[in-house]
C-alpha cells in the first residue's frame, strides 16, 4: 500500500511541476497572435517598391481594418497615400504614426514635407510658453508621458521614505526630492495636456467649405484645404463644427474629414 501511495505522490508532483512549467511558458512567451499583419505588411512593401501605391494602400488598410496598428504601418500607409496623391489621408496617417512614434525622424521629415505642399492656415502667434509646452508634449507619446510621470512620482515618494528612515537631512536630498516632484507634476500635466489636445482632432480629406450653419445652403465662412488639421467641436446630423488653427469655427460635412 505504501509504495502505490508514494508513486501516486510522485505522479501528482510531476503533474504539478508540469503545470507550473506550462503556465510559466505561457506567461513568459511572447504573445504573437497573428502572422497576418506581417504578411500584409511585406506584400504592401513589394507593391510600394513597384509603384503600385493603390495596392499598397489596400494592404495597409486591411491590417488596420483587422484592428492592428503600429507606428510603422501608419507611416508606410501615409507614404503610400502621398505617392498616390491623397495629401489629406497622408497627413492623417502621419499624425497617427506621430502619436505612436513621436521622435521618429522619418515620420517627422515626411510629415513636414507634405505640410509644405498644402495650404495650411497659420495659427495665431502662440505665446512662448505654449510653444515650449507643445514642443515638450510633441517629443513624447501620451503613454510615455504618463508612465514617466508616474514612475518619477513613485520614485520621489520612495526616496522620501528612504530619506526618512535613513535620517538623511542633507539639503541635496531635499533638492532631489523637489526636482523629482516637479518633474513628475510636469510630466503628468503634460500628459493631461496632450490627451486633451489630441481628443477630437481631425484632418480634412478634401478641399471643402466651412459654413456658418450645418446646412448645404448656409453661407460659406471660410475654406478648408486637404490636409488641414482641425478640432471637432460638435456633431449634428452629418455635419461637424470644427475649429481651425487660427480659431475660426465653421460647419463641415462629416465625410470630408477623419479623426486621427
Amino acid at each position, binding site marked *: 500500500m505504501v509504495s502505490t501511495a508514494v508513486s501516486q505522490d510522485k505522479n501528482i508532483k510531476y503533474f504539478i511541476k508540469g503545470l507550473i512549467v506550462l503556465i510559466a511558458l505561457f506567461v513568459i512567451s511572447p504573445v504573437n497572435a497573428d502572422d497576418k499583419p506581417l504578411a500584409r505588411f511585406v506584400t504592401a512593401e513589394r507593391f510600394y517598391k513597384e509603384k503600385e501605391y493603390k495596392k499598397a494602400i489596400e494592404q495597409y488598410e486591411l491590417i488596420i481594418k483587422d484592428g492592428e496598428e503600429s507606428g510603422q504601418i501608419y*507611416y508606410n500607409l501615409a*507614404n503610400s497615400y502621398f505617392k498616390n496623391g491623397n495629401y489629406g489621408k497622408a497627413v492623417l496617417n502621419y499624425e497617427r504614426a506621430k502619436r505612436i512614434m513621436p521622435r521618429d525622424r522619418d515620420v517627422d521629415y515626411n510629415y*513636414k*514635407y507634405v505640410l509644405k505642399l498644402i495650404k495650411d492656415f497659420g495659427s495665431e502667434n502662440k505665446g512662448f510658453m505654449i510653444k515650449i509646452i507643445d514642443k515638450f508634449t510633441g517629443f513624447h507619446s501620451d503613454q510615455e508621458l504618463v508612465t514617466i510621470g508616474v514612475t518619477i512620482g*513613485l520614485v520621489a*515618494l520612495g526616496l522620501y521614505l528612504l530619506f526618512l528612515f535613513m535620517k538623511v537631512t542633507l539639503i541635496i536630498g531635499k533638492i532631489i526630492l523637489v526636482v523629482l516632484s516637479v518633474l513628475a507634476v510636469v510630466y503628468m500635466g503634460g500628459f493631461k495636456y496632450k490627451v486633451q489636445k489630441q481628443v477630437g482632432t481631425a484632418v480634412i480629406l478634401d478641399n471643402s467649405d466651412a459654413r456658418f450653419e450645418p446646412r448645404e445652403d448656409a453661407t460659406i465662412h471660410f475654406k478648408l484645404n486637404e490636409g488641414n488639421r482641425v478640432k471637432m467641436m460638435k456633431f449634428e446630423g452629418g455635419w461637424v463644427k470644427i475649429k481651425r488653427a487660427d480659431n475660426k469655427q465653421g460647419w463641415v460635412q462629416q465625410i470630408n474629414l477623419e479623426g486621427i
Partner: protein
Amino acid sequence: MISIYQIKKSIILTIAILAIGLTINAQAQSVSFTAEVDTNKIELGGAFQLSLAVSGVENIPGFNLPEIEGLNIRSSGSSTNITMINGHYEKSRTFTFSLFPMKVGFYEIPSFTAEIDGKTYSTEAISVEVVDTPGPVNNQIASSGQVPDSANTSIKDKLFLVVKTDKNKVYLGESLLVKIYLYVNGVSVRDPQMPRIEGVGFTVGEFDKRTQFQQIVEGVRYDVVEHDVFLYPTRTGTLELGPIKLDCNLLVKNNQQTNRRSFGSFFDDEFFEGIFDSYRRVPMTVESGKGVINVLELPQEGKPDDFSGGVGSYDFNVQVSPTDVKEGDPITLKMNVTGQGNINAVNFPKLKETNEIKLYEPQISQNNGDKILEQVLIPRSKTLTEIPAIKFSYFDSESGEYKTITRGPFPINVQEREGDIGLRIIGGDSKNDFNVEEELGSDIVFIKSEIGNVKPIGIKKYKQPSFYIIIVCALILWFFGYVYYLRNERLKTDVVYAKRKHAPKYAKKQIAKAKNFLVSEDKHGFYDCIYKTLKKYFSNKFHMPVGTVSFESVIDRCRISKADSDVLNNIKAKLKRIFEECDIVRYAAGQISHDIMQNSFEDLEEIIDFYERKF
C-alpha cells in the same frame, strides 16, 4: 310693252357708256407735283415740314432734297394716299421733310423739278420766315434797356458748346483737364449724349459726372451742363483739339398745319391754341470750335536715371514694418505715390536684391489718386542694419523741373534665429506663392521595412485597469511604509507610549514562563514570576517606577466609568488576592495549592486582558 330687242339695246348702250366713261376716267387722272410747307413763319428753335406730293403716276421713285443753306434737313419718310374724288380714284405719294432753321431770317425753298413719263414737272418756290423766340426767357430788355437786334439771332446763340482747358501747353505724359460746357437757352433739349472728342494725338480719359447749373452771359440766362474729362497727349507737337460734338434731341412743337390735318379745321381757332399741342423730337448735333494744344517733350537735361515717368505734382511715402525681426522673418515695404498727373504711367522705383535682402514680387494697386506698391522682403542675415534709401523722381510740370523725393534709409534690427528656419507662410491671405528654399528634398523618405510593435487599435496601456492597479498597489505599499516609519518614530520619541505598547508583550512572555513554573509545581518560581510580571506590566502600562507598584498604587491609577465598576471590582478583588498570594508564598508556601496557582494563573491572564482592553 318693252320688247326683248329694246332691253338688249339698253344693255348694249349702258355697257358702251360705261366703257367710254371708264376710258374717259382712265385718261382723266392727271399728273401733279406740288410742294407745300406747313407754316410760313416759325420761331427759331422750331422746325417746319416740307411736303412734296406726286400724284397720278403709278411708280413714283424716292426723292432726295438738295442742301439748303441755313436749314437742317431731315427726311421724315413718305406716305401713299389713295383718294376718291368725283367718282374716280386718285393715287398720290407724299414725301415729308423736316427742316430746322439755324438762324433767324428769310429762307427760300427753291422749286423742285421732276421728270415723270417723259414730262418735266416743277413745284413752286416757297418763302419761309424764321423769327426769334419772344418772351420772358430773354432778359435783355430788362437789364440793358436796349432792344436787341434779333434779326441776326441763330440757333447757335441758343444752343452751343464752350470748351475750356486748364492749360494749352502740356508736357508729354501730363494730363490735360478739359471742361465742356453746353449752353442752352430758349430751346428744349432732350437726351443729351456724352460729348465726343475728336482729334489725333491724345487719349481721352473717363468722363466725370456731369453737373448742371445756370449762368448769365451778357444778360442772357443759360442752362449749362458741364462735362469734365482728362486728356493725355500721346505725342509731342501742336495738336488740334476738336471740334467737340454733342448729340441731343430738340423738342419741337408741331405746327398748326399739322394739327389741322390731325384734328380738323374746327380746332384751328386761336381758342384752342396750346391745348392740342404735340411735340416731336428733332435730332441735333451741337459742335464746338477747334482748339490748339502744344505738347512739349520732357527735357532730357537733368533727367534722372530712375525717372519714374510721372509728370505732374506728386508726393511719395514709404513705410517699412516690422523693423525688429529675426533673420528669415518677412518685412513688408509699402510705397505710396499720390498726386496730380498721369499716375497710371508712374513706375515705382525698384529695390535691389542683395546678399542680405531677398525680394519677392511686389504687388501694385491703385485707387483714385493713390498708387501703392507692397513688397515683401526677407533679411538673410543679421548683418543687415538698414533698408537703403529709396528715391522717387518725377517731372514737376509747373516749375518745369525734375524733382526727386528721397525716403529712408530705414534702420532694421535683425536678430539671430536659433534652429532651422521652417516654412514661412507670409500672410494668410497673400495671393503670392512664395518659393520655399529650405531643405526641400526631392521626395519623401522611403517606407519602413520593419513592421514594429503591432498592437490592437485603441488599446492604450494607461487605459488598462492593470496600470492603475499597479499604481494603487505601489501607493498602498508606500503608505504602509510611511505609517511604519511614523510608528517607529513615535516609539523612539514617546517613551511612555513605547512602554505602554511594550507592556502586554512582556506580560505575554512572562505568562508563558509562569505556565512552565505552574506545570513544574515550582511555587516560588511561579509566584516570583507572577509578581515580577505584574509589577513590570503595571510599571510599563502606567509609567510608574517598578518599585512603587502595589495593589493600592495600581488601583489608584484606574479611573473607570461607573458602568464598568462591577467588572472593575471583580478584577480588583482578583488582583488583590494575587498580590496577597505572592506574599503568602514567601512564608507559608504550603497554603498555596496547585489549584490556587492554576486559578491565579488564569486570573492573571484575565487581569492583563482587562487592562489591555480598558487602558
